[in-house]
Each structure stands twice: as C-alpha cells, then as structure tokens.
C-alpha cells in the first residue's frame, strides 16, 4: 500500500470525485426534503385518517418498509420507464429514496403522535382550535422533540442508501470512486477513502442532530 500514490490518484481525480460528492449530497438532500413532508402526511393519515384511507396508507407503508431499498431502487428504475414515465437514473433513484424516506418518517410521526396524551388534543379542542390548529400549535411542537433523534438517524440511512444509486449508473461518490479505481487499481486505498468520506458526512449529521436536540430539549 502506497499512501502517496493513493493521495496522488485522489488529487488528480479531485474534480470527478468532488462532482460525485456533490451528487451524493444532492441526492440525499432532495430525498430527505421531499420524503419528510410526504412522511408527515403518511403519519397524519395513519393517526387520524378514516378507515379506508388508513388501510391504503398502511399497505403503502408496510410494502415500502418490507422491501429492501436496493430492490426499491431497481424496481423504480426499470418499471417507471416501462410504464411510460421517462425519468433519468438520477430521478428514478431519488424517487425511490423519497418513497423510502416517506414510509420511515410516517412511522416515526405516527409513533410520536401516539405517545402524546389524549388530554392535549381534548384541551386544544375545548379552547376552540380546529384540527390543523391543534396539530400545528399543540401536537407538532411536542412531537418534533420526539421525532428529531430518529429523524436524524433516517437522514443518515438515506445518505448510506444513496450509494445504491451507483448500481443504476448514477455517478455519485461511490461510482466516481470506482471509476478512479478502474483506472488506477488502488481499490484498497480508494474504497477506504470513500468509506471515510461517507463516515464524515454521517458523523457530521449525527453531531448536528445532537446539537439541535440539546438546544430544543425541555429543562426538567
């Protein structure tokens, strides 16, 4: 193992690698930003929807959580183009990750709403708040504190799952690294490098999450 040689290879491929890094961040950010509101909707329906709606969304969520993300990504990539929705590999991948994110956020939101005592909803209703008023000014602020730690974990899961897009040909950080490997044969050093970068991204997300958690935690 020659470290200088590896650093040299990384340095001379810095632009493609940086490009891949940017794509990884973009894929993860878009999937989380789209998946989270969708997931809140899923959680709301699971908690307050009527029976039919709840059943449909339950199926949606269970199906998505029972399928491996990898299969979900391959299925979205191949199936969408067959049914006439022309998406690039990038878009199909982001679509799959968004679905994945929404089902997980949905479960988290439902779980958090379940733990809030019923008295809170009743109190809100008795002072005359509407459903949305109750949700946004009474339940959501309380639920958010419970959601935050698990949501941060979901975000790191999405970053990790974004590597799977390399299999359908999206040049994110892993595929960019693999392209350098196929030129230089430095598989050990470069896979280590890719792993390190992913670790740092997720470590940063985790630390940021902890920081926010501490800021918003209630004094007891």
């Amino acid at each position: 193992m020659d470290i200088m040689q590896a650093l040299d290879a990384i340095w001379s491929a810095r632009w493609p690698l940086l490009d891949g890094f940017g794509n990884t961040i973009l894929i993860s950010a878009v999937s989380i930003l789209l998946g989270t509101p969708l997931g809140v909707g899923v959680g709301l329906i699971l908690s307050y929807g009527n029976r039919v709606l709840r059943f449909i969304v339950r199926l949606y969520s269970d199906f998505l959580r029972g399928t491996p993300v990898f299969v979900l990504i391959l299925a979205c990539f191949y199936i969408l183009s067959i049914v006439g929705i022309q998406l690039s590999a990038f878009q199909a991948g982001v679509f799959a990750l968004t679905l994945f994110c929404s089902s997980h956020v949905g479960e988290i939101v439902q779980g958090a709403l379940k733990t809030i005592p019923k008295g809170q909803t009743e109190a809100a209703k008795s002072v005359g708040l509407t459903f949305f008023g109750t949700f946004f000014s009474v339940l959501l602020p309380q639920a958010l504190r419970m959601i935050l730690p698990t949501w941060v974990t979901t975000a790191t899961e999405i970053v990790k799952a974004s590597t799977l897009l390399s299999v359908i040909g999206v040049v994110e950080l892993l595929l960019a690294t693999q392209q350098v490997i196929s030129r230089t044969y430095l598989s050990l050093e470069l896979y280590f490098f890719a792993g390190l970068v992913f670790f740092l991204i997720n470590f940063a997300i985790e630390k940021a999450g902890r920081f926010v958690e501490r800021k918003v935690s209630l004094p007891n």
Partner: protein
Amino acid sequence: MDYDFNFAAVWRDFDILLSGLGLGLVLAVISIAIGCLIGLCLAFAMLSKKRSIRWAATVYVSVFRNTPILVLILFTFFALPEFGINLGKIESFIVTLSVYSGAYLTEVFRSGLVSLPPGLREAGLTVGLTEFRTKILITIPVMFRRVLPALGNNFISLFKDTSLAAVIAVPELTFYARKINVETFRVIETWLVASLMYVIACSIIAAILRRTENRLAIPK
C-alpha cells in the same frame, strides 16, 4: 399504459427465486449469530471501567454505523485480498454483514444491560457465582429477553440488507430477479414478485418474532 402482464416467465423461475430467498435468510441468520457475539463483547466493553476500552468500542460502533454497507461489502470483497485475505464471495459477505450488525447490536445490548436492575448481578454474586458465571447464567439471559423486540427488528433489516449481496454476485433473490429481468424483459412482473416475496417473508418473520416475544416476555 399498454402493458400486457405475463407472469409465465417469472413463474417458470419461481423455484430459483425461492432458493435465492432461502439463501438470503441463511446469510442473515449466520450474520446475526456472529453479530450477536461481536455485539455482546462490545456492549460489555462499552460499560468497561477502562476509558480506552470504552473508546475503542465507541469508535467501532460509530464507524460501522455511519459507513454505507455497500462500501463495506465492496471493501471486504475487492480490497482485503490486497492484505492477503482472500475470501469467497459468500464468506466475504457474511464477514461484512456480521461486522455491520455487530455495531448495531452493540447499542441494543448496551441499552439492555444498562436497563437491568443492579440487584440481579448482586444476587448472583451473593449465591457464590463468579463474575463471569453471573454474566453467562443471569445477566445475559435476562437481557436477551428484554431486548428481543429490538433484536428482531435488527434481524429483519439485516435480512433486507442481504439483497446487496447481489452486487458481488451472490446468488440470492435480488441477483436472480435482476437476471430474470434482463433475460425476459418482464420488468414489472419480476420486480413485483421479488418485492412481494421480500414483504411476505418479512411479515412472516415479524409474526414469528412477535409470538416468540410474547412467550419469552418477562411477566410483570
């Protein structure tokens, strides 16, 4: 959308899909067994009095939880041979998945151990058991019964992660699904059947786990 469904191609190869599902289950079972050993050792390390041991266990957990499993799989398979460690693809995948699950299970076991009342260990020592036998005979069995739900969830997500073995050509369900997809172009049928197989397998595992949990639950 004009697409003629034709499941014949998928049914013809249904037995190899099933064998792939079986291989995935076997991989998950072996990996979680090894992962449990790693997790147990590291959970005790996390609670050790020595700071350096605690720190080493924390680093392990943090590194393997925050690195994408796909990068770990590729690293073990393609980069470790440079160290002279040559593993077949199935062995290599089992090693990766065990190490990966070890990190998750450490957290599970650690919180399980912390939640045990100290009187349990004290009672063991009082009746004359050594520290080691107290752990084996009392602490660990009780802890296992407490963490069973978390352990089950980890098993299900490990089972889903076995789909990634397809990337290094381990012939499990996703590998065969990709093969059938490419050979027959029955895209929707293939992915529908493959993901349904995963969903159904996961539901069955979840149901079995819930029954076991109920049977082994510590009576209040």
